Every structure is written in structure tokens, then in C-alpha cells.
């Protein structure tokens, strides 16, 4: 309740700033917050990543198992994405089974990875029709300061890039790097009046949760979209956001890749 | 024959003409719900064909007491909103020396009037009107509230005809509940007639057909008696 009142107070302030062409944290309307990616932070997981988007923090862990393929794709591995909005991450999250927001988050992240064919699932077939690798992508929000969606999507692909397939543990050959062949990046925008703000922070969300997420692959194709929130979107706005999102994704992708490479280099230096 | 309009249909370009069942956006008048278009040079409105009863002050309604509190009664008026009838809105002489639940108890039916509605749709009823009373005899029938104007008829013609032909009391609640009292057999004829009106609400020559129906039924009654 107290949380709601705080949001109401913020609302007018945020709105007036937006209408005068500014964001409360001084960012441009098309500007992401600072992105930080750390991979390999959970040793027990096959792959992991902690992503910070400003103050928003999400951890994704990858676990892998050997399982049966789906009957219609006997020669392909399986991806299963789940998300848990644990009460630790926000005063508005409640314990209990995943609610619709949590389900939506997981499914939109999953769609981006699946549709961009980020993971080469054919290479995860152990024995056609019998045994394939199952990848569990578990999204664990730690601090929801807005835009868990993009933070989770970055964390998911980063964790996948960090994943080693534990073949030795399951006695099906030698361990190998998970074959990742694309880096889908989602860009979420908050729609306020005629404005759109990429990567909204929590305070900006006080004006509403009219969001649209557009995920694109490394070639600039759109691979997933989700309008989320009770609002009507004009066609002009949609096209504007669509083009901006694809362009922004390219920038974010570069940052993510360079951070992961930097991390790998640091890791190597430590080892030596 | 009036035109049927649907939500979002553009029905006028003069926002000052906008009446019931319309909404105005950027100076244009649109229909708000499914209904019949009633348009003149100076006014445009939509007469609903369907829908729940939404109370409006001054409406006569029939309701059932659901709860008794220290200072009044919570009354179900068959709308999304329950109504409150404060003790102070009950005629003083009938309240004298009685406990609240001795005046009206859970399950009792009343004919009341909507006194006021606040912006949060808290509905207050009054019994201080000559049409209002607790209902302890007779029968209550329920119809679609959008059909109520038909049961009443043009300038009350339908209801007047039912009352005079059958010699019974009828009170029509705007919420679609109708109280009928009098000779049991004639009440049954009225009830049947009301259901026909509801079913065929907008067909041609309805008043004539109902008059004919009542005369026929009355004739059957008289024949049975002789």
C-alpha cells in the first residue's frame, strides 16, 4: 500500500519531466541504462550470468540434463525457460506460484532465444528420438528497478554463451561449449502519451506499464514482439518503436559481447 | 424503424447534441453501447437493447434486503451495486418503537426509490415516497432491465392497459423487477403478458397483441367460472 502511494507521488513528477522532453535520470529517450554483464558466477550451474541494467539485477542460471526429445523434433535439444519473481526483488512481489507477469517474462525471453535459433539445437541431439540435451534457463530476479524483461533477456543469452554442456557428468562423451550462434537482444519501450522511452526504470513505470518489447537477431530481423499492458498503440508509434528497437539492439549486443569478452579475458589473466 | 448502432459508430458531428449512450472524442459523437439510435436535429442518444441495470437517482426499484445493520439495510437491487437504505430514510411513524430488523428483515422485498449515488457508485435508497413500501403480498417477476420501457409503454400506455383490464396493482422497477398484486389468476395472466412483452419487446403492434392476449385469457377465466 505504502508503495502505491509513493508511486502516485512520483507519477506527476515523472510525467511533467517527460512532457518537457526529459527523463528523471537525465537519459535520452532512446538511451539504455548502464549495462553490466558478469558470467560464470555460479559454479554449480552449467552456465550463469548476472546482469545489471542500472539498478535492476537479474541472475540467470543454466542447468542441463539428458532427456527425451519432443516427438515432433526427435533430433533436437530442448529449451525450457522459467522465471521466478522472488519477493526479495520487490515489495510488490508475493511468494507463491508464478503469476501472469512472471509467466509472460519467461515466455517472451524464451521466444527470443528460440526464434533467433540462438542455440544450435541439432548439435544437442545425443541419440535421435531417444536422448537429447535439455537446457533449463532459470531467470531469477534480484532487484526490480524496472525493465526486468531486457535484463532477463541479456542475462539469458549471456548465461547460454557461458554454458558448458556437462557431457562427462552424464557419461555421454566429452564436455563441450554450448553451440550459441546468435545473440537476440530485446528492447523494451514504455509508451507515454506520444513518447516512447527505452529501458524504463521503476520510477518511470509509475506513469503506467504500457510496454512493448521487440527482440531482434544479429542480422536485424525481428524475432519476437510483445505488446504488454492495457493500452492502445498507434500504428505510427509502432513503426517508430520497431525501427528504433532494432537499431538499439545492435548497440546493446555490442556492449554485451564486449563485456563478456572482457570478463573472459580477466578470468584468463587470473588463472595464469 | 430505428437504426441499430454499435459501440464506436459515429452518430453525430455536433458534440452539444450528445446525449445518453454516447461519448464524445475530438468533437465527434460515437455510440457507447449496442442500441437504437434516437436522433433529432438537436439531440442524439442511444437506447440500450441489453445490459445490466445501472442505478440512477429518482429510479423506482424493487429490491431484496440482504443484510440488516444498526443504522439501515443493505438491499440487493439486481445491479452491480448493492444499495443502502438508511433507517432515517424509512417513514418515522412506521419505525416507532421497533428494532431495525422488525421493520425489515433479511429476505424482505421492498419498493424503494434511488435517493442518491456518489461517484464511487454507493447507492442510497429512500422509502419516503408514496410509491415506496415493503412488499409482503403479490408476486415479483424479473425481466431484462433494457425491456422495462416496453413494459411501461408510451406514456405508460402498456402498464395502464394491464392494470385496468385485469384490475390489479403493478409497480415496475427500473431494475427489471416488477411487482404484481391482486387476484391470483389475474396476476398469472399479467405475468405471462410481461414475459411476452420482454420476449417480443420491439416487434410491431405489440400493445394491440397484448391487449388481445389479455382479453382472450380473461374470457377463458370467465368461461371457467360459469
Amino acid at each position: 500500500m505504502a508503495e502505491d502511494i509513493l508511486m502516485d507521488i512520483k507519477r506527476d513528477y515523472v510525467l511533467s519531466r517527460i512532457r518537457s522532453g526529459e527523463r528523471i535520470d537525465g537519459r535520452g529517450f532512446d538511451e539504455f541504462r548502464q549495462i553490466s554483464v558478469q558470467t560464470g558466477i555460479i559454479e554449480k550451474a552449467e552456465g550463469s550470468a548476472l546482469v545489471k541494467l542500472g539498478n535492476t539485477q537479474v541472475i540467470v542460471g543454466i542447468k542441463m540434463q539428458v532427456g527425451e526429445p519432443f516427438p515432433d523434433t526427435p533430433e533436437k535439444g530442448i529449451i525450457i525457460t522459467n522465471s521466478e519473481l522472488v519477493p526479495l526483488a520487490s515489495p510488490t512481489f508475493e511468494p507463491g506460484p508464478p503469476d501472469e507477469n512472471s509467466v509472460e517474462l519467461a515466455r517472451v525471453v524464451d521466444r527470443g532465444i528460440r526464434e533467433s535459433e540462438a542455440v544450435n539445437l541439432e548439435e544437442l541431439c545425443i541419440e535421435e528420438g531417444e536422448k537429447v540435451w535439455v537446457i533449463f534457463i532459470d531467470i531469477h530476479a534480484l532487484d526490480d528497478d524496472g525493465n526486468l524483461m531486457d535484463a532477463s533477456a541479456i542475462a539469458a543469452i549471456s548465461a547460454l554463451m557461458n554454458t558448458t554442456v556437462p557431457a562427462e557428468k552424464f557419461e555421454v562423451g566429452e564436455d563441450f561449449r554450448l553451440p550459441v550462434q546468435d545473440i537476440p537482444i530485446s528492447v523494451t519501450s514504455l509508451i507515454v502519451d506520444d513518447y516512447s522511452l527505452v529501458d524504463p526504470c521503476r520510477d518511470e513505470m509509475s506513469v503506467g506499464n504500457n510496454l512493448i518489447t521487440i527482440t531482434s537477431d544479429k542480422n536485424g530481423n525481428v524475432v519476437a514482439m510483445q505488446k504488454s499492458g492495457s493500452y492502445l498503440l498507434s500504428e505510427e508509434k509502432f513503426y517508430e518503436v520497431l525501427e528504433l528497437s532494432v537499431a538499439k539492439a545492435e548497440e546493446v549486443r555490442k556492449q554485451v559481447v564486449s563485456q563478456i569478452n572482457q570478463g573472459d579475458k580477466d578470468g584468463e589473466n587470473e588463472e595464469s | 424503424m430505428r437504426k441499430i448502432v454499435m459501440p464506436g459508430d459515429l452518430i453525430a458531428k455536433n458534440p452539444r447534441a450528445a446525449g445518453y449512450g454516447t461519448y464524445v472524442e475530438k468533437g465527434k459523437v460515437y455510440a457507447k453501447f449496442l442500441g437504437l439510435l434516437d436522433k433529432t436535429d438537436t439531440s442524439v442518444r442511444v437506447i440500450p437493447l441489453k445490459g445490466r441495470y445501472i442505478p440512477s437517482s429518482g429510479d423506482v426499484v424493487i429490491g431484496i434486503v440482504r443484510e440488516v445493520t444498526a443504522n439501515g439495510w443493505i438491499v440487493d437491487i439486481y445491479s452491480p451495486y448493492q444499495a443502502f437504505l438508511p433507517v432515517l430514510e424509512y417513514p418515522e411513524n412506521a419505525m416507532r418503537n421497533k428494532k431495525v430488523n422488525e421493520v425489515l428483515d433479511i429476505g424482505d422485498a421492498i419498493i424503494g426509490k434511488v435517493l442518491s449515488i456518489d461517484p464511487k457508485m454507493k447507492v442510497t435508497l429512500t422509502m419516503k415516497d408514496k410509491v415506496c413500501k415493503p412488499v409482503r403480498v403479490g408476486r415479483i417477476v424479473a425481466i431484462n432491465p433494457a425491456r422495462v420501457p416496453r413494459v411501461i409503454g408510451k406514456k405508460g400506455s402498456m402498464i395502464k392497459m394491464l392494470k385496468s383490464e385485469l384490475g390489479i396493482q403493478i409497480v415496475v422497477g427500473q431494475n427489471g423487477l416488477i411487482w404484481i398484486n391482486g387476484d391470483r389468476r389475474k396476476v398469472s395472466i399479467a405475468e405471462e403478458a410481461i414475459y411476452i412483452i420482454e420476449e417480443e419487446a420491439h416487434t410491431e403492434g405489440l400493445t394491440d397483441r397484448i391487449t388481445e392476449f389479455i382479453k382472450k385469457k380473461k374470457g377463458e377465466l370467465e368461461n371457467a367460472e360459469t
Partner: protein
Amino acid sequence: MQKPKLIVDGKRLDGRGFEELRPIKIEAGVLKRADGSCYLEMGKNKIIAAVYGPREVHPRHLQDPSKAVIRYRYNMAPFSVEERKKPGPDRRSVEISKVSREALEPVIMKELFPRSGIDVFVEVLQADAGTRTACLNAASVALIDAGVAMRGMVTSVAVAKVEGNIVLDPMKEEDNYGEADVPIAFLIRNDRIESIALLQMDGRLTLEEMKKAMELAKKGAMQIYRLQREAIMKKYMKEETEEPEEENEQ
């Protein structure tokens, strides 16, 4: 399983052209108890929608003092698909219910009915492809049939990319093996597409293809919109032949 050839000589597996809808049948007011209802077929989809309300919301803490609370439940009958579906909501249904509700919420005039609830229940009796769009079309008709105040009609259709072609209203095989699927819903008012109420996409499309998909969806939606209106008209036309009388004297 071998991917079948989906387009032969410019025709789709069911003989349709790229810009053609499946056969659609819509009937308004098919249920007695509900305030509004609709039965809809779109290809082999068989959908039934019911609307209850505005009505009281229980428990009371779920009420909103400033507007009606909208609930939308998309549900697939266990027998609606080849392999029996476990009853009850799965993650897919939860997501579909959410985005569908969010498509209707800004169109329904919720603020007119504070503290009340409007429930939209949609059952998929038989699923082909595009159930969420078919359900939304049925729900919209049921809402209008219930007399609920709305800004206009919500009409939904999917567009897909199949063997490099942008096609309207994909059928099951096209949905399974196509390169992209884009379900969209529009607010249509006075025969004009006003805005986008629902938008999802999965698959792979270039920006150009995305624009083409949008244009095709608009074309398809206008056709469905006319059928939705016709269905409502058909139900009420037979009743409305005389001037209504609405004097309230008693």
C-alpha cells in the same frame, strides 16, 4: 517429421490465396445465462465466449473504487486438440489471457462501472491455429451483445510468413512450419482501424516483411469486423422493427 510443402502454385494447402481468410461463422447471443455471448468458427476453430457483468466483485478487496475490474479467461477444452490437454490453465493460457485482457481493457469503458467486475470467459472447443485471435473476436461480439459500453470493436487476426510469403490467417500446418507468426488485434471504430490493441510475434521477419504483415492484417481485420457486425445485427434485426417507446410514467 518431414516438413510438408505448404505452398504449391501460389496456393496454400487448403486452396486459399495468400490474402484470404479461412471461412468464418459468427453467431451472437447463443447462451441463455450469460449477459452476452458468441459462438465463432474460424477454419476448424470452434470458440464460445460468454460475458458476465458488470456485476459485483467478490471478495471485496479485488474491487477497484475507480473502475470495473476486467477478467479474461482463455481456456482450452481437454478434447479440443489431438492429444488430450490437461484441464486448467497452463503457462500458454495464462499469457494469452493476459495479453487478450490487456487488448480489451482500454476499449471497455471501465470507469463507468466502479467497483464492479466484467468477466469474459472464452472456451476453445476445437483448436485449429490462431485460437487467441478467434477468441478475441468472439469475446468482442459477446461484450457488445452484453450491452457493455465500449469505444469500438476489437478485431483480431494473425499473419504468418510461410515459405517466404506473407500470408493471412495461418492454418495449423502453416503455424507449425511457417517462419513467423504475428497475432494482432485492432480497435476498429466506425469502419476505421484506430489502433493496435494486441501485438505479439515469434519467428523471423525483416522490417519490410513486418510492415507488409501489418498491412495484410489490417485488410483481414476489416473483413472480420464486418462479419462481427453482421452477426450482432442478425440477432437484433429480427427484434427491432418498431419505434421503441420509452416514456416512464406509471
